[in-house]
């Protein structure tokens, strides 16, 4: 198991540094490297949590940063850069799922992941993580997405709100409830 890497140190909060880096990168695309270094870990972790294998996660991560590099001149700071970047990541993963399922009817694409098990469940080895994966699999897609954006991508509540089109307070409340529910169910499961 990898060491815990997602901490505040890598949390892509919408910082002043981000705004400056974005301005620099818009003026001089070579400066994009610093944004890349800041976000490559969170983006890869998020995508990996969606697709469940490293090869696809790496391809899609590359796609996301290529799209971000090309789209950066059109980006206007209306919210967190992280929110914008992860919107691209979500769209990219959605496109990947569509390509992988060419016979899916259009109606099914309204929520292309509605029936996907969390792919991480397949790769977790230790018991706690396996329990956690099982619990995640019982959540609906929206709940899983909240946790991915918070704990795989490391987004702030505000940035998650921008990505999902929800109010920050609503996101915060939903995450709190999920944590409390997980804690309660965890205790019940382990008390049996």
């Amino acid at each position, binding site marked *: *198991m*990898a*060491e815990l*890497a997602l*901490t*505040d*140190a*890598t949390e892509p909060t*919408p*910082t*002043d*540094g981000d705004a*400056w*880096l974005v301005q620099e990168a818009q*003026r*001089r*695309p*070579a*400066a*994009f*490297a610093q944004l*890349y*270094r800041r976000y*490559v870990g969170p983006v*890869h*972790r*998020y995508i990996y949590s969606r697709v469940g294998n490293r090869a696809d*996660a*790496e391809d899609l991560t*590359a796609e996301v*940063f*290529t799209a971000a*590099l090309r*789209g*950066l*001149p*059109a980006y206007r*700071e*209306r*919210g*967190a850069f992280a929110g*914008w970047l992860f*919107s691209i990541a979500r*769209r990219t993963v959605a*496109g990947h799922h569509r390509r992988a399922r060419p016979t899916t009817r259009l109606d099914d694409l309204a929520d292309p992941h509605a029936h996907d098990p969390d792919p*991480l469940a397949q790769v*977790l080895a230790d018991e706690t993580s396996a329990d*956690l994966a099982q619990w*995640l699999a019982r959540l609906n897609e929206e709940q899983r997405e909240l946790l991915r954006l918070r*704990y*795989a991508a490391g987004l702030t*509540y505000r940035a998650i709100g*921008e*990505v999902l089109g929800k109010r920050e307070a609503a996101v*915060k409340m939903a*995450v*709190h409830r999920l*944590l409390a529910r*997980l*804690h309660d169910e965890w205790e019940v499961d382990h008390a049996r």
Partner: protein
Amino acid sequence: MHADMALNPAEQGVEQALLRHYATGDPAPAFVERLERQLNAQAVAVTGSQTRHELAPRLWQRWRATPRSLRWAAGMAALLVILALAVGALGPQRVWAQVQRLLGYVPGIGFVNLADARVLVAPVQLERDGITLRVEQVIADAGRTSVVLSSRGLPAQGSSARGAADFTARLRLPDGSSLNAGDYALRWGAATIAFPPLPSNVYTATLELDRLPLLPPGAAPENWAVALALRPATGPLVSQLFAEPYQPAGASDTQAGITLSVVQVAHSPQTTALTLRGVWTDPTWQIWSVSGGMTLPVLRDDIGHLYREAAPAAGDSTVAVEVIHVEAGATPAPPPTVLEQELAFPAVSALATRLTLTIDSLRVSMPVDATFEVALPPGVRAGDCWPLDIRLDVAGFPVHVTDARLVEQATGRLALALELTGITGQDGRTLTAISPGPADSGLWLGASGSYDDAGQKLRFSLDLNPDIPLPATAIPVQIESVDVTVPGPWRLSWAVPGRGAAPAVPITLRPAAATDTHHGLTLQVTEATHTDRLIRVVADLQNPPADVQLYQLVRRDPGSEQWALTVTDEQGTRYAGDMPDVVWGPAGETGVSDVGPELGFQALTLPPLAPLARRVTVTFPGIAVLRPGRASFDVTVPSGIQLQAQAGRPPLSDPWPVDISFKIGGYTAHFAEAQLVAVNEDVYLMLVPQPAAGSGRPGLFGFCGLRITGPTGAGAPTLDALGQGPCTLAPGFAVMDPATGEIVPGMYQVEVNSYTEYVPGPWRLSWDLTGQP
């Protein structure tokens, strides 16, 4: 951890488990490095036009991936074969003409090869609920299908990042299948979208958009479908639809060892576009953009118009610039980097015979290898400031790191801020940015910086990692690259083909009868310059009272803030307001800093009249006049006041109540609130203004000539109001000690030595173009 969550210990345990769970997705270091290299290569291509045809960058990337010696050999061989075939078949004079015939300038896309392309013969538009979606052009070739859109009447709530990220578009083909959008470039009200190539036998398609570009869900009608009919781009159609580029002769200049040349130009009815080729001698240098210097590139014609660089728009003209690198004293090698930047300017005057592109300075990135250590005082805390005496040679600059500060940022993280002097080098070069090496130690997460032109200082700040304790003694810093601004100017001048030899002379009138009088003041047009692109009007007060001067012609109603400048002719035809992208300066004026909306407050730049118009009338709501008057007042900055980060805006404090009243020039001024705002790494106190003067009566318009005395007895710089010059109704002044970076609380004394007064009209100035009164 996420400090903003109030979790109980058990929930924190759950959070830890989730973090560990998702950490299995950490990327492999080799992948991170590989992707960074790929992105760096793409950044070179992206430096140019974001909207140009993608075929060239892809070929270029493939070319770059080839070993250098092979690239050179293959390139030379291919070039010789192509030239030999072309010259043999056509003769040398016709080669360029044949190449040119295949090229066309397409606004929103750039210079494209039209051979075997299918195009839209005329724009197609749809209107729904007052919003117009217009497909300006479609270029379908073997490589891709490019669609250029514009939209008008968009709702005022503006664009959103989500609107950009969630943008989807499809081309529905006659057989029911569809092509999904690949790359796209979106601007407010415009977009260029690239789709996969259309099948060769397809000439009709339907463009389907879920939403208009950059609009959030629900902001405007959705699910648009526009039927498109294409035709082969052959014969006279090409020259009718697309501006044909030409190769300007002699458009080249060398300064500071860097040669820039314009290699391609096109003029369309709404735009002018260029390509610049650059050669420099140091192989380690990179020039990412000709727009990276201290001022933006400027295009000037021989009539006196100055054209400001603008984002490409439908119907623009374009100039393309290419940069080639040749190693000094060595066999010429292929360029390590190519800059292909489409600079779009407003369409130049139809009467211009000669154009000059001026690039005031260039920003050059160069690698350096400098390391130093910032010693930390024992027990250092946020807010501490301590002197340093570190001397470095950075790219030939004798850099002196003089001060360090530990600053708590608005995000709560600490930053190590350094101040550097010695950044002005020989030949006028200036060190304007520093990039640190990768934070291998994990001590910092990123860096930011700013260049202080007035103080000739560079401020450089490392965003410290809160999860790693500060080292006990020192923080190591490695500088990986720097940006150096190299002064020019480069002036690239060329003749516009097919135009007369002598430049047109603008008509300048001094219409003595163009006057208007209100509230005892008479305003007179002192000079009106008419060209085919604009009218420039200069006005002044006629025989004003002593000590009264014209300060500004006011274009907006100060009560409603609505634009209220109108231009009409004798037939009642109304013309659009100001011309922000084109201005005019007297002949012989070569300065480039005056491009843009005119800040000369006594002048207006207006659109040109229709050819047969004989009389022009300009109406605007008021004027502002400068009058003498003295007043002083005190304002106190409370202790412990904090700034808070604002999304997309400078950090602000909460406003606090004040009660400041004083008389000036028969008016009583009152301020009820004050607020701190961070601007350019300084902190200013702003007095929140009272409501502006109403439209119907004279009133205070601004306070001028402020002098500040701070709590320590020292003066403080004042903040000009953007676009309003030195007089403003919202006075602001610095309250930060530049030595410590701390806000200095206490009482500040403010002296005002003059004021501006709004004098309502409406003012009407009218004159005859034939010179009749």
